[in-house]
């Protein structure tokens, strides 16, 4: 069976506990009879959400001349509403760093960040059996590049992170090509989504309503950022996957129901078995 791997599952396999990693491996490994498939939008999401924060922290260590100053800066940022999330993520990583002095802790953290930034996407490419490239997401194809500045300072260039930039973004054409699946999702959400339902699902519905009115080009709305779950669902259809494997079931459940896919849900708790939601009877 071809199983589409969501960003959250890759993260669980490589950044959660060994037990969780083992669970994902037993569900998707060689003996499971599954082919691991993923897509460019998933790769882009991984880059934007995880590598982006890592690159920020790496840069901050240089700008603030060390671990302690960066720590104080992030503690101050935690008070600000729009910075609190990123600051909290960085502080969580910094809490695990030990060392005899500031330089030791700075070097330790930089060594980890460097390894993560330079190898994460290659690890992703190597882990999945097939990478669906149909969406033509230009941002996903740009790997972080290391540059040495004058004075020996190292910076990482992450490349574009907005749809439509670079002149080679094909997400708009992909959405047009997948219009049958988009229509299925649109009608399913229009019929089932409650007014107080998930904001992400309302965003998807609004996006689909707007694109069908042809008032604007799809990439104007930066869909990889704003409706990434929709693009990932469409990528799974383009890759002929009968199953979606994710931890984020609240958004994926209605999308899989609309597309007639089986949903496999990975729990945050390593001791809890995966939950399998079969496709709706009408789709079988």
């Amino acid at each position: 069976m071809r199983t589409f791997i969501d960003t959250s599952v890759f993260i669980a396999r490589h950044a959660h506990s060994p037990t969780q990693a083992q669970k994902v491996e037993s569900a998707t490994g060689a003996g499971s009879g599954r082919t691991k498939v993923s897509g460019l939008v998933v790769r882009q999401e991984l880059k934007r959400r995880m590598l982006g924060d890592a690159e920020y922290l790496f840069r901050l260590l240089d700008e603030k001349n060390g671990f302690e100053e960066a720590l104080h800066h992030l503690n101050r940022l935690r008070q600000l509403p729009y910075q609190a999330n990123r600051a909290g993520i960085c502080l969580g990583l910094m809490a695990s760093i030990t060392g005899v002095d500031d330089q030791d802790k700075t070097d330790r953290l930089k060594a980890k960040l460097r390894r993560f930034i330079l190898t994460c996407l290659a690890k992703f490419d190597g882990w999945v059996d097939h990478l669906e490239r149909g969406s033509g997401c230009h941002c996903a194809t740009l790997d972080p590049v290391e540059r040495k500045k004058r004075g020996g300072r190292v910076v990482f260039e992450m490349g574009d992170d907005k749809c439509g930039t670079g002149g080679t973004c094909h997400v708009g054409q992909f959405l047009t090509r997948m219009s049958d699946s988009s229509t299925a999702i649109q009608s399913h959400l229009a019929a089932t989504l409650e007014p107080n339902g998930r904001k992400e699902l309302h965003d998807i519905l609004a996006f689909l309503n707007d694109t069908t009115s042809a008032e604007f080009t799809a990439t104007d709305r930066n869909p990889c950022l704003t409706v990434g779950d929709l693009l990932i669902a469409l990528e799974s259809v383009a890759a002929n996957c009968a199953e979606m494997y994710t931890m984020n079931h609240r958004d994926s459940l209605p999308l899989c129901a609309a597309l007639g896919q089986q949903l496999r849900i990975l729990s945050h708790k390593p001791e809890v078995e995966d939950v399998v939601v079969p496709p709706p009877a009408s789709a079988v």
Partner: protein
Amino acid sequence: MAESATTTTLIVATSVRSASYADATAPGAIPARNGPAIRGRGTVSTKMRSADLPTPERGAELRSQWVKAKRAGTAIAEALERDPPTSYGPACDLSAALDAMWKLRKQRGDENWVSILDCLQLALRELGGDGVSFLSPQQGRKLEVFVHTLLSLSEKSDRDLLEAVRLVDELGVPPFVDFKTFAEAAD
């Protein structure tokens, strides 16, 4: 009155700024420890302390620690093939040698090598005190290869870094386990 006070404050602030800039850019001046980083010609780097400067003696010490680490890596691999619980001693030796190598990391001036060293230290920490004895003989040989080839004192590339991540994964340690908080935010 209020205007005069403001003017005085501004003058003082400007003169303080000028004085610190003049001090920092004077020939042979060493920038203040937590002061602004002034880059370009004639500046003194505060990054490399005298205790970290590469010297032949420290280079020899690093090489000797690597030899110890290699010996411990081979001993672990052999112990896992014969009698796994006896791998505890060599695992402690390996851990101690890696700690000593970390202290001498500035000798290398190779960020990839430092990151590879950190990667193996992370793996040993995650495996825990006697965790090495639960590795299979094949994993023991991989650990040996890691120490012998990836921690060698030649220049390391991004490909070596990726190989280190792959080998740690094969030892049963998720390679990005340190980034758990990043992961939880992204879930």
